């Protein structure tokens, strides 16, 4: 009897010991799961006109790596080109250049995928540029063939567009790009025929009034424009002159005045321009010389000084440069390789380094935006 009791105690002791070991093993197993694994990211949306779609990519903040979102590309209208994302990251609008319509997409809050919300909104003929104001209340669409600007008020809950009174507003034929100042007070349209920039004052209702001194003369082949985040300077790249024109921006009227020393030499055939998120550095994508010119900008005078690492930032035929909202990366859209390349910004020097991350498309890329 005592022996049996002893065996039972011994068995229990063994069981407890085994249990403890098992508990440790299981705890270790669970510790393999990286709790809190979700890292910061942005979402990039890229139109692919030949597929009539919008591709979506997750960009990991820590590495700049692109991952295509499941189901992408999402079907849009015929030949989608320009696109804009709402500041709330709830909606994407896409201009369909052959349909002459605007597609509204709802962004899935979990995975960033897109679902189109019908019906599509009528635009002008061949919408080619699109910007949304920082409050997300107005959408501006420049129409290339009809040479006008459609302005829509945005329903903040649904993203549905309603043309404002007076829309569309005329502009000079052959507009090639449109930029809204960060405050939303001024709208600029680059015109390739006149090599000039047309400026418009934006009322709170969205109606446009041409600036008194407009148009503002740029260089030959004016093709793209950027306004710095502090709304002090505007930059226009001139594809034929191989220069960038730098203007000071009047904060009350929006008038542009070329700064001393402007224009500044760039690489060959500059087609794209952007700044970093502080406005201290300027980047110009040179389609002809397959590289990116990098400048530091004097915050008082606007004078541009080329960075000393020039010309090391190479990329194939950059036609659009997009600044990451966090200021960590600059993305270069290639006009020939169907890729988007990532460059890491040295926030101290402004220098760009190719981070080796790319997003590839099966067809040519139209335009790109990145969510905040």
């Amino acid at each position: 009897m005592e022996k049996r009791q002893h065996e039972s105690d011994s068995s229990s002791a063994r069981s407890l010991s085994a249990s403890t070991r098992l508990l440790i093993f299981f705890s270790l197993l669970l510790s393999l799961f990286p709790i809190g694994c979700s890292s910061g990211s942005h979402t990039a949306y890229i139109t692919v006109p030949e597929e009539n779609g919008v591709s979506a990519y997750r960009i990991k903040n820590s590495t700049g790596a692109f991952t295509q979102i499941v189901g992408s590309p999402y079907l849009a209208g015929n030949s989608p080109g320009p696109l804009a994302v709402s500041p709330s990251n709830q909606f994407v609008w896409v201009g369909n250049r052959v349909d002459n319509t605007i597609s509204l997409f709802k962004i899935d809050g979990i995975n960033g995928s897109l679902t189109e919300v019908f019906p599509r909104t009528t635009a002008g003929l061949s919408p080619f540029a699109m910007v949304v104001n920082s409050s997300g209340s107005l959408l501006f669409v420049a129409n290339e063939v009809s040479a006008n600007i459609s302005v829509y008020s945005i329903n903040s809950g649904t993203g549905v567009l309603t043309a404002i009174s007076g829309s569309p507003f005329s502009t000079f034929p052959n507009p090639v790009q449109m930029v809204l100042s960060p405050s939303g007070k001024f709208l600029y349209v680059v015109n390739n025929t006149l090599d000039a920039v047309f400026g418009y004052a934006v009322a709170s209702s969205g109606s446009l009034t041409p600036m008194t001194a407009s148009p503002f003369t740029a260089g030959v082949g004016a093709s793209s424009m950027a306004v710095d985040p502090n709304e002090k300077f505007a930059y226009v790249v001139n594809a034929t002159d191989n220069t960038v024109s730098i203007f000071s921006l009047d904060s009350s009227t929006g008038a542009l005045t070329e700064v001393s020393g402007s224009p500044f030499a760039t690489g060959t055939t500059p087609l794209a321009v952007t700044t970093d998120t502080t406005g201290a550095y300027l980047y110009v994508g040179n389609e002809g010389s397959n590289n990116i010119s990098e400048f530091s900008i004097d915050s008082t005078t606007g004078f541009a000084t080329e960075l000393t690492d020039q010309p090391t930032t190479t990329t194939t035929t950059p036609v659009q440069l997009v600044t990451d909202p966090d200021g960590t990366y600059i993305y270069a859209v290639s006009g020939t390789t169907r890729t988007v390349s990532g460059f890491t910004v040295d926030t101290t020097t402004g220098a760009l380094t190719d981070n080796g991350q790319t997003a590839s498309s099966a067809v040519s890329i139209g335009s790109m935006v990145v969510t905040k």
Partner: protein
Amino acid sequence: MTRNFSGSVRLVSLSLFLFLLLIPSASLLHAQEVPRYDIFGGYAYRWFDAPSIGYPGHSNLSGFNIDATGYIFMKLGVTIDASGDYGSQLQVYNFMFGPQYTLRRDRSKFYVHGLFGKAQNRVDIPQPTRSHFESVGKSYGGGGGFDYDYSDRWSIRVFQADFIHSNTFGTAQNDVRVSTGVVYHFGHLGHKRKL
């Protein structure tokens, strides 16, 4: 998500701890028979590699896991495994089979297995022409677990943990699946070794 996952971990750990405390006081009936077949059914948690398909972070999925094991020898058998895990927008299925190596001691059973088969994953994203995207691809994995006998016929699967690699949506997913539930035994293969 992190909070939910931490809560799940705490819940599982607490359940396991309480279970282990109860083991010594449980029925001391010794199951001598070694069954030829095991049928398992229970709950499965999956740490799904959602970033591989564009999600910002891993997804915590819950669902079922069933498997059937037939023993050829005392230690070696073949397992057929099926699982389905569900979360917001996501449905993840695996249908796999493979060899299982088992060690039996008294009322405990430890095992490891390798699994090979298919994965079928679905993501619900409404589009004008469809309601979801679905992909089927190869899948393989491996893992193991621990069963504790309650009677000759029934055991509790304290846990089973598997790493599962799948290729769907043109990319690779590396998931972890943890299962728990009950096991039913039948058939006769031999006798267990007593401690």
